[in-house]
């Protein structure tokens, strides 16, 4: 089979699988555009607004890729919200107390934060694989402890000021146009898709989620694979935290509160099964768009806070239902 046929086939496959969800994104955009016009605010579908949506979804996006892997193994990670804060606080601490040259300390700070994230993920992985603690509980415990630790490390308040260079990752736009954060997110998605679809590791992740005992008996290294998945997810959460703290120019221990649920929602709306084994990175991207467009759009047309919560719930449900009905119709 030639590469182009192969590519066409997988595009068709993608549309067949995610067409409904992509439609949901389109419907969202249309609704917001119509309301925006009525209200006389700026057009929702302008290029700058779309870049803005992508830019805002950078953090969720980076997290969602890691979460997809975790959920594919049949696990879950509730600690990512706290890791956003943890990562930001650690890197801000290093940079705040570091001196010249600023660039070096920023790199060191980011590195230390990523290492700390890897340690946290490693701990989760260890608990899940070697002590068979359910991931829900292991990461719930970590969520609480890491949040408390972030506050303690930061002394309860955001760490600032930080040098201007610190905002590169979050605010810089390459050519004045494409935000660095968006590029980082897109790279993470591409790498994630390659890792999941084209490597042995990706096969193993899926196999574990589909039938863990079967995978074990087939010689799949369960412990090592899961461990790597939790490490990866935690490091990506820290990366998200670095982007956020760079956007804000401060290391905020309150950051990311409650974000774990939003990220999980995006992944599941994108068609990944919470019982593991089934799901794709492409689906996660579409799920992310549904949630991000919604969040931005509601702010755009000025829905107040309480109404936003009601609508968020309804839309999550609507998207999942839409997807379910498609499945029913097919099978």
């Amino acid at each position, binding site marked *: 089979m030639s590469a182009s046929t192969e590519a066409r086939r997988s595009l068709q496959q993608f549309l067949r699988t995610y067409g409904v969800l992509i439609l949901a994104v389109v419907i969202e955009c249309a609704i917001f555009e119509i309301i925006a016009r009525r209200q006389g605010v700026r057009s929702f579908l302008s290029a700058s607004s779309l870049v803005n949506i992508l830019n805002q979804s950078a953090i969720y996006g980076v997290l969602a890729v890691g979460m997809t892997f975790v959920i594919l193994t049949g696990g879950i990670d509730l600690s990512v919200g706290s890791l956003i804060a943890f990562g930001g606080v650690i890197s801000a601490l290093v940079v705040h107390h570091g001196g010249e040259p600023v660039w070096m300390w920023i790199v060191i700070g980011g590195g230390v934060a990523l290492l700390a994230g890897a340690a946290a993920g490693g701990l989760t992985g260890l608990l899940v694989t070697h002590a068979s603690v359910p991931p829900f509980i292991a990461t719930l415990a970590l969520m609480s402890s890491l949040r408390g630790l972030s506050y303690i490390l930061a002394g309860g308040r955001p760490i600032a000021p930080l040098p201007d260079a610190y905002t590169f990752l979050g605010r810089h736009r390459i050519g004045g146009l494409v935000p660095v954060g968006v590029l980082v997110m897109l790279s993470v998605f591409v790498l994630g898709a390659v890792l999941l679809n084209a490597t042995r590791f990706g096969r193993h992740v899926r196999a574990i989620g589909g039938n863990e005992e079967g995978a074990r008996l087939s010689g799949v290294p369960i412990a090592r694979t899961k461990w790597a998945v939790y490490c990866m997810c935690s490091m990506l959460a820290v990366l998200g935290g670095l982007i956020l703290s760079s956007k804000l120019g401060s290391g905020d221990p309150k950051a990311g509160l409650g974000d774990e649920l939003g990220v999980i929602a995006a992944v599941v709306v994108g068609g990944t099964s919470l019982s593991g084994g089934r799901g794709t990175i492409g689906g996660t991207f579409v799920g992310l768009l549904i949630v991000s467009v919604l*969040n*931005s759009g509601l702010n755009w047309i000025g829905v107040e806070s309480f109404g936003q919560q009601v609508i968020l719930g309804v839309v999550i449900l609507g998207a999942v239902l839409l997807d379910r009905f498609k499945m029913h119709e097919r099978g």
Partner: protein
Amino acid sequence: GSEPDAKVVGASLLTQTHVFYQDMVAAMEEEAKKQGLNLRIQYAEFDSSKQNNQVETFLIQGVDALLVAPVDSAGIKPVIADARAKNVPVFTVDIAAHGADVVSHIASDNRKGGELLADYMAKLLGEKGKIAIIDHPSVASVQDRTAGFEASLAKYPDMSIVRRVPGEGQRDKAFRAAQDLLQATSGLDGIFAINDDSALGALAALEAAGLEDKIVVLGFDGTPEACKQIRKGSALKADAVQYPKEIGRTTIQTIAASLRGEAVPAEVPVDVRVVDQASLAAQ
């Protein structure tokens, strides 16, 4: 930590996560040491049930006075009644308790702060312009701030509130909301952020969008980080300042006086002021 016969004051405060409360508590602890009081502090973290439990725990442990910053101004009433039944005097700080038997309430007026900021905004913008609020409407004191702001802004016919976006009082959420706000709304002139975390989030969004010269931000609380930005001449122009340290100090002084048997006023207002670059430079 104090001498064994020191009077014990149990405090259940709204949260430990706000700089305002951290500053207030620092001053309280310092003053308690001076007054020879044993101050035991708990934080309810916006959970009225938890606060209820904390107050009950204090009552079982036996304290000489209770200090509360209520999560739920109405919901605190029953435990305050319990305390009164046990003859424990109750004081409130920052947030009032509705209809409860409280010896004294020490706070600065959130509503007043909002009013002052509206006037400041009017002055800054020449009494005309479109304003947006970075809101957090589930918190009572925030509701007072925005109510004051709105009421006072109504005096200026050419000024209007065009948008309210939710920032949850958190920097990251406020940042996101402000970005959407800036994208959606053209011709915006000012932003009122209900606390300094929201203001700093909005400020970051303005800077990221390159709009820091076009739109002004007003904040609330006067945290050191916000003051630094105001002093620097950023888009954050002014803050309503509540003087948390003064509130903390006054609170403990009032409690100590009351425990010594002195009469204390039912309301101890602590001044709210607006600080801007000029007034900060003058200090």
